[in-house]
């Protein structure tokens, strides 16, 4: 081993202890039953109505949240891109600032704000406006997902937008394209890697979340993340929890594969 590789040793030890070993344990528990015998039951448990409903709901809500994030983020990224550097760093700061605060804390704050007798409804009542009853509904979960994961959509799209050479846009105009044609034929296709990596970075954490659904969805709405969490914490059935985690991992891997196909140069990624 040469000296440069030696520098990687601490991380190597770290990744074995906290990534590879736990992953191995997930697979071990997931593929065995309580007696330790090999079984696929924990994985096929996803087909039970209760679990597949949670998975379907998680897929649906995170898909909706991803679409909303995309629709909000793209215009925002374009505005950021067209700004000069001074205005721009101010906006980016405003935008990034909340990200520095703990994500649990922010979600908890929204719980307080959205409650039936929470801050928002108090203000609405005071103004004699109808109250907002979205806490403990799927809408609140989607809202929480969008709120928490929007920056992860903006940054890669913004990144890929800034990489477009101004002359390429000029060239398209020069060849007769109007504003809309420049956008659909040049800007949008050139930012596909950014869009794909934004989608990945929003969809995966949204799909696997259990905190947002727990805090903003009450305990009535179960996403697949909540089911897994309950198996580990309440039911103490690590085997089933691991099995369902493996199923979730398959969805994540599919998403990653798609994003690598579209983003060969890694240009959309911000990490």
């Amino acid at each position, binding site marked *: 081993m040469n000296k440069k590789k030696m520098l990687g040793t601490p991380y190597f030890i770290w990744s074995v202890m906290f990534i590879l070993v736990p992953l191995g344990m997930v697979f071990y528990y997931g593929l065995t039953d309580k007696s330790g015998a090999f079984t696929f039951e924990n994985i096929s448990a996803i087909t039970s109505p209760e679990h597949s409903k949670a998975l379907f709901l998680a897929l649906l809500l995170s898909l909706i949240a991803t679409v909303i994030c995309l629709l909000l983020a793209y215009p925002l990224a374009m505005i950021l891109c067209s700004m000069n550097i001074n205005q721009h760093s101010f906006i980016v700061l405003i935008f990034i600032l909340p990200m520095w605060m703990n994500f649990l804390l922010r979600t908890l704050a929204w719980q307080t704000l959205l409650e039936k007798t929470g801050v928002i409804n108090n203000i609405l009542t005071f103004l004699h406006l109808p109250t907002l009853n979205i806490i403990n509904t799927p809408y609140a979960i989607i809202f929480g997902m969008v709120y928490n994961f929007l920056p992860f959509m903006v940054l890669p799209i913004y990144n890929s937008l800034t990489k477009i*050479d101004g*002359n*390429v846009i*000029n*060239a*398209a*105009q*020069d*060849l*007769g*394209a*109007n504003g809309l*044609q420049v956008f659909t*034929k*040049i800007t949008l*296709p*050139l930012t*596909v890697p950014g869009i794909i990596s934004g989608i990945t970075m929003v969809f995966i954490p949204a799909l696997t979340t259990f905190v947002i659904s727990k805090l903003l969805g009450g305990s009535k709405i179960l996403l697949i993340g909540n089911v897994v969490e309950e198996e580990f914490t309440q039911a103490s059935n690590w085997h089933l929890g691991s099995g369902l985690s493996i199923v979730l991992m398959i969805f994540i891997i599919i998403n990653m594969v798609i994003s690598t196909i579209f983003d060969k140069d890694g240009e959309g990624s911000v990490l």
Partner: protein
Amino acid sequence: MNKKLIDLQNISKSFDGQMILDDLNLYIRENEFLTLLGPSGCGKTTTLRILGGFETPDSGKVIFDDTDITKLPPNKRQLNTVFQKYALFTHMTIAENIAFGLKIKNKTKSYIDDKIKYALKLVNLDGYENRMPDSLSGGQQQRIAIARAIVNEPKVLLLDEPLGALDLKLRQDMQYELIRLKNELGITFIYVTHDQEEALTMSDTIVVMNQGYIQQIGTPESIYNEPENAFVADFIGDSNIISATMIEDKLVEILGTKFPCVDTGFGCNKPVDVVIRPEDVILSSPATGRIKGVVTHLIFKGVHYEMEVTANGYEWLVHSTGMFPVGTEVGIDVDPFNIQIMNKPASEDEEAVKIDE
């Protein structure tokens, strides 16, 4: 002479309070190969971008074919641009790149296919239809950029330092290629460059610019042989620019020695600048020369020797096929018709600036 196709009238433009173009007037004739030549920051690219519609002048008019197009957006103009770094659409094949403008104009598929074939043949890249831009060399990409522009049959092709990113050999080949293309297409080329050799090789007309002002407009020969001021003389080729006094018509005193020349009309005992090209300095034995000097540097350049000769307190730059070793005493002479007399700069704007080459 062909008729005026483009007329720039009193164009001014500034960015962030900095004047880039100041009351520029310039016309371009049909079928002309016109080059805007100058150091970076002289306003040549801004002039081109105003022509292309990517910048709007603060004041002044752009007249194209007797119509005012000052406010017309780029997509409505009958001219096309070849950009400095090619600006190809990297997500499209070569054929799609070339077809871009034609598809927007809703041309038929067979018309577009014919045009792609024709354009690729014209730039010597037949068979490249399905390649991606990234897989082509710089020179090939530049030729695709040209093909993409010319299929739209523009009346004018704007070229913004198109050879700037290419290596020397390729640049020279492309110069001939561009001249051939211009002759085959029979359209106007407006070419922006800071490379004087490119300008001299290709142009019908050269416009030398500096700090937002036009310094001289003329044929390559007249720009080279009869620079109007020290800036032009310094920018185009190597030269000896010496302060001198015009004694009378056809007689100039350079560094204390009287030289016969051919220029008239500068007045008597008037301070002037003279330009003497290094290849026009005649070295001989000290006895026969008009001024005596000593060779201080000698470099072999292939075609000629480059020497520096100190004479009467001035370092003369000399190009000669004859070799005089360092330390040799030589005589310097110049034929009268090789002495170019120029007025001293009237304002600071005309002042020669040092150019990094």
